[in-house]
């Protein structure tokens, strides 16, 4: 962060998030933001605001754009699913950049995740290991998203469906399930045809009937309107 050294101790040292908040339209913070995405990758942090700010600066000055950094931002955005961050980033990336091979691949991956096609996703991801494996936490983040979507959809999901979505099989899957049984309230059940079912804890999305029925409440300001008439 270039700012801190000039005036020695007097100058406040800003974190990158503060820089973005204080002065979001300043081309000089571009290198800081580029360093910060590297930092986000290596220490498994994430800041959508900082990354959008960087993409915006690239949009203003396309000659300064680094393809490598854009790719990192997009992978981090994929990991933020179910939030729509990947699209938010794409909105800011010129089409001529999006047609590059690696971006086409990432867009395809996003499409598979958006449409719940986990089998295709993992197949495609496997073909591009060199690019994705260097991002710590990538696999875990996608698995978390898969579980999120499954637990919205299912009260009880067949083990095979779960296996496909998180791309884990055999003993590793047993361990994976065990872990969630211990930590996240999953339980196991035998279904019809003796297949194994994983039961997700209840939430208002897989038990939509739990959703509180909205009461017939009338706001005071509406009632006030009829006061003069009633009186």
């Amino acid at each position, binding site marked *: 962060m270039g700012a801190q050294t000039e005036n020695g101790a007097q100058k406040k040292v800003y974190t990158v998030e503060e820089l973005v908040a204080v002065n*979001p*339209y*300043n*081309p000089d913070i571009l290198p800081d933001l580029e360093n910060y995405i590297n930092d986000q990758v290596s220490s498994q942090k994430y800041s959508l*605001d900082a990354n*959008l*700010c960087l993409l*915006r600066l690239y*949009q*203003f*000055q*396309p000659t300064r754009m680094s393809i490598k950094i854009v790719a990192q931002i997009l992978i981090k955005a994929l990991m933020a699913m*179910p*939030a*729509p961050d990947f*699209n*938010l980033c*794409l*909105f*800011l990336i*010129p*089409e001529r950049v999006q047609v590059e091979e690696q971006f086409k691949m990432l867009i395809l991956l996003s*499409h598979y995740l*958006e*449409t*719940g*096609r*986990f*089998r295709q996703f993992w197949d495609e991801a496997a073909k591009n290991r060199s690019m994705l494996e260097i991002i710590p936490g990538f696999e875990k983040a996608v698995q978390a998203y898969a579980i999120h*979507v*499954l637990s*919205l*959809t*299912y*009260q*009880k*999901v*067949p083990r095979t469906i779960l296996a496909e979505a998180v791309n884990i099989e055999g003993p590793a899957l047993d361990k994976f399930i065990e872990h969630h049984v211990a930590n996240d309230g999953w339980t196991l059940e035998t*279904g*019809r045809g003796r*297949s194994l*079912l994983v039961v997700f804890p209840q939430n*208002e*999305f*897989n*038990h*939509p*009937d739990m*959703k509180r*029925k*909205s*009461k*017939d*409440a*009338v706001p005071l300001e*509406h*009632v006030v*309107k*009829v006061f003069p*008439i009633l009186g």
Partner: protein
Amino acid sequence: MASAYDYDDSSHEGRDSSHEGLEYDPNYVPDAVKTFVVHLYRQIRDKNVYEIHQMYEGSFQLLTERMFRDTPWPSVEAVASYVDNDHVFCMLYKEMWFRHLFARVMPTGMQRVESWDNYCNLFGVVLHGVVNMQLPNQWLWDMVDEFVYQFQSYCQYRSKLKSRSHEELQLIRQYDQAWNVYGVLNYLQALVEKSTIIQILEREKEGLEIFTATDGYDYDNGSSNVLKMLGYYSMIGLLRVHCLLGDYSTGLKCLVPIDISQQGVYTTIIGSHITTIYHYGFASLMLRRYVDAIQEFNKVLLYILKTKQFHQKSPQYDQILKKNEQMFALLALSLSLCPQVKLVEENVNNHLREKYNDKMLRMQRYDDEAYSLYDELFSYACPKFITPSAPVFDEPLGNYNQDAYRLQLKLFLFEVKQQQLLSGVRNFLKLYSSISIGKLATYIEVDEPTLRTVLMTYKHKTHAVNSKGNIISHADIDFYIVEDVLHIIESKPAKRYGDYFIKQILKYEGLITELERVRLD
């Protein structure tokens, strides 16, 4: 009035300003104009906001209609001597002068640059806190609105290089700071910060300050409202600029200090009200927060429906109607992707059906014709996206003014495509309380694994992430799966008897009052 001519600049393109030069003498000041500026100058000095407003909205339009329908007003140099060469007044006059020019006459490249300079000077004076004027909010809103409009217009101008003359290209190159995107954003941001408007709104919530109740005017001490209100409107300006750039989440962040769930200063000027909700709704649509979009469009469309008649004489009337139509199109898009019709008020829904019923039905089919309808509505109703970067002169000169729009359209249609099977599934779900996956798969004519992905897509797309990061369901037909059986739950809204009765009571009361007024003899 700022962007009445909004949609396509190219319609102006053919006209150049030379033809009206035959009669137009910039130095000729008719008596009526002399009186106008002298009077306006005096009212501004005397801080008669009401009078200023009358002149600004009334007299200026009247004189324009009478004398300057398609020629510019007299130049500022020509009128300066009637107003003591007052520096600030001259800037205000120029602001109006350029705004009128942009609306009525095609500006030259140089005039665009000069208008930018004038805004820089004007905002510079305001930011340095040396003005003590009070101006009508309408005018201050128009300034911010026009500032963003001219920026957008310049980006369009600068991105159509093919037909530019050598001189024009030279000018674009030479004045590369004019309407520079950093400059534009930083002025808006500086106005927000310098005005401390965010803190003012915070303090108001705690009851420590009055802002909304007086619409930002200071009736007691007569201190200037200019910086404060420019700061307030700049938050809306920032939302709009970010939408033009395709940066929707940042845009919505800029609007957070304004609570749009209720009336506020932003609703007192109809232009500001519409601009705010139009961009808020559009950004929400792009963020897949369909319910937010539907609710806010519904509210503002109902408001316009009820108040349209009062604006018929307003210079903004055409613009109001245009945005009204565009928001109906956006509402049709939102409802096609998220069929929560019960969120839409009856009258609004009737108007919507009148205009779009047929198209909305066809959009549910998700065939090629449906996509072309999504395309049509989006293209008609979207903001005029811009490419903010400076042109590259080394490459062969081309037109890239459509690039930004095409990208946003493409991504939107991609989203629509991802949701193509959902409406079919939804129609089947409506018919059952439970059904096996196998059976449903044969009805929809897909295999079981595909159906499972479609069902997950349905869940994912109907569960949006809100601004606080929470998952919000906007499914009216919802379901859950146990192993391989779907259980369907239709959320039937509780009938709102309370509201219904109150509405009827008020209606009958109105009717009785009406009847009592009738004299039979």
